[in-house]
């Protein structure tokens, strides 16, 4: 439909399309500088795609862990603009995997859809994920994204039913499968019907299929790798970073902190 004037960098930067690990971090939590360092550490720990969160005042799809991370980041003065500006810094630091900006719809609207995707492109981002724009409301944004070579990541949920096909067929970058009903946050157990759901999604999807929401243990990661092309881990990453926060915030213990973050993540995704 639209004229692809700009080529997409997502596929080029993606290390692999199986057994993917897609961590989420919140821009500015605990500080912008550490966000950059953490992005690099995550890549070093095996991340294939980085989801870079923009903190939002009213994050409807998020559980307490990410809500609190957002609140801390807003407190620190983080904005969507500053979050985007972190990306070139990450690139400079050596982050070469695809970076997907995660932001709610309202900041996108205030920024301007076209301005946003242009800025993303300019700042070497690869994708955009807006959790509160379902397929039916995404057309305009998708057109802008496509026009500027930014992959608009779609989400699909266990109750999407007959919409699975429609969503999967138009998905770009990777397809984000919500593991179970509910918001982001750790879950003790996974939905028992997850395998048949993922099978159905994979059937229709032409892009890699990753599972997110609630994945927080190595067992869960291993299980998901059986059914999907990768896992998205958010709240658990935030928790790991929170646990190392005091070390990370001090110049002299930062490297140790980052090392321990890496260790924990390696344990989490190891298989």
């Amino acid at each position, binding site marked *: 439909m639209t004229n692809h004037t700009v080529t997409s960098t997502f596929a080029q930067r993606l290390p692999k399309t199986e057994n993917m690990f897609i961590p989420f971090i919140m821009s500015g939590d605990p500080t912008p500088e550490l966000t950059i360092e953490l992005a690099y550490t995550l890549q070093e720990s095996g991340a294939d795609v980085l989801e870079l969160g923009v903190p939002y005042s009213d994050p409807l*799809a*998020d559980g*307490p862990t990410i809500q609190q991370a957002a609140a801390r980041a807003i407190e620190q003065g983080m904005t969507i603009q500053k979050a985007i500006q972190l990306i070139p810094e990450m690139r400079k630091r050596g982050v070469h995997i695809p970076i997907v900006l995660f932001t709610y719809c309202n*900041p996108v609207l205030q920024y301007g859809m076209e301005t946003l995707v242009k800025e993303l492109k300019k700042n070497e981002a690869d994708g955009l994920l807006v959790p509160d724009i*379902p397929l039916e409301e995404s057309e305009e944004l998708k057109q802008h994204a496509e026009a500027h070579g930014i992959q608009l990541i779609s989400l699909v*949920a266990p109750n*999407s039913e007959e*919409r699975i096909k429609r969503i999967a067929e138009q998905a770009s970058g990777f397809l984000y499968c919500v593991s179970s009903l509910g*918001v982001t946050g750790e879950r003790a157990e996974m939905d028992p019907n997850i395998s048949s759901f993922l099978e159905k999604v994979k059937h229709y999807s032409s892009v890699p299929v990753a599972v997110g929401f609630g994945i927080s243990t190595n067992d869960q990661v291993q299980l998901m790798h059986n059914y999907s092309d990768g896992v998205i881990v958010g709240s658990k990453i935030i928790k790991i970073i929170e646990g190392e926060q005091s070390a990370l915030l001090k110049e002299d213990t930062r490297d140790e902190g980052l090392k321990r973050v890496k260790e924990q993540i390696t344990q989490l995704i190891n298989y």
Partner: protein
Amino acid sequence: MSVTYPDAKGRFGDFGGKFVPETLMAPLQEIEAYLTEALQDEEFIAAFQHELKTYGGRPTAFTYANQLTESLGGAQIYLKREDLNHTGAHKLNNAIGQALLAKRMGKTKIIAETGAGQHGVASATVAAKLGLECKVFMGEKDIERQELNVFRMKLLGAEVIPVSSGSKTLKDATNEAIRHWVAHCDDEYYLIGSVVGPHPYPEMVRNFQRVIGDETKTQFDDVKGGLPNRIYACVGGGSNAIGMFYPFLGTGVELVGIEAAGRGIQSPEHAATLTKGTPGIIHGSMTYLLQDEFGQITEPYSISAGLDYPGIGPEHAYLHASKQVRYESITDDEALEAIKTLSRTEGIIPAIESAHAVAQAIKEAETMDPSETIVINVSGRGDKDMSTIMEYFEGSDGLD
């Protein structure tokens, strides 16, 4: 023309829609499907009307405010008495409608958000009456401020769930209710309290509230013949206003919605969403809202808890943009003065929310001709606000 909104996507012009996480699309579609079917089922309509009448106390009275009219010397003032509803406000109409729908859908539990507690009480009430479980999400700050309403909900058998996220008020209670619903949409029904939220809520709530305007039309015609010149209603989320206005759209009656100007729209402390807000998305709907330059939703302020909301129903955004309704704003001080005036001239203590409509009507009635007529929607009674009013007037010292 206006009456064909919302469109298939739930849009009122540029506003409305469904800006929700994917997981909510299915429950919203389920509601839409059941609702469409229910509204075509005479039995459902009859059951709704039966509860409104035998339980809620409808039709509510239509009062000629003879003393207020005479004291102002302008337009003849009529009052639509939603304060006479069971539980004290128009909120019940919608709660009954949605709870009946929830039952029809086979849901056994309802959840609701509440600020001051009015919608929470209405929800707890219909849940009790219809034998449903009820969870009410309420900001921790509001729980502290509204101890009696919290107890009332518990007495009615509802569980009140304290919300500690964000600013711990209505906006966050709504967020939390939505988050909870996402995880429990299989057996829970989310009973939203105003014409806000994703499609089909704004349309549904309007349809359950339009009984206000429908009755008013008949009652006015019975008493005076024809139509009034102007109608006034306060606007928080906008359900009492849209319920009143909807049947009068396109009839030539001048419709006036009144927002809360709090400490003044030049100050940062107000809740005048249409007057001072900008388009954006809140609680799943494209509408006007109070936000900063980056799209972070800002805290509104109004002395009246029911108007203290940073958004507004998308249909109002549309009616504003299409100039079908005029929106004004009234400060805390003006509203409180109007409470005193209506109490003393008519023996009716309105809710602080409703007093905003009264205040604007008083301003305008004075300048109108005695042959003209206006209707004020008294959306609720002031009982719930007595401590706030008392504090404002410093006991009764400030009353005279």
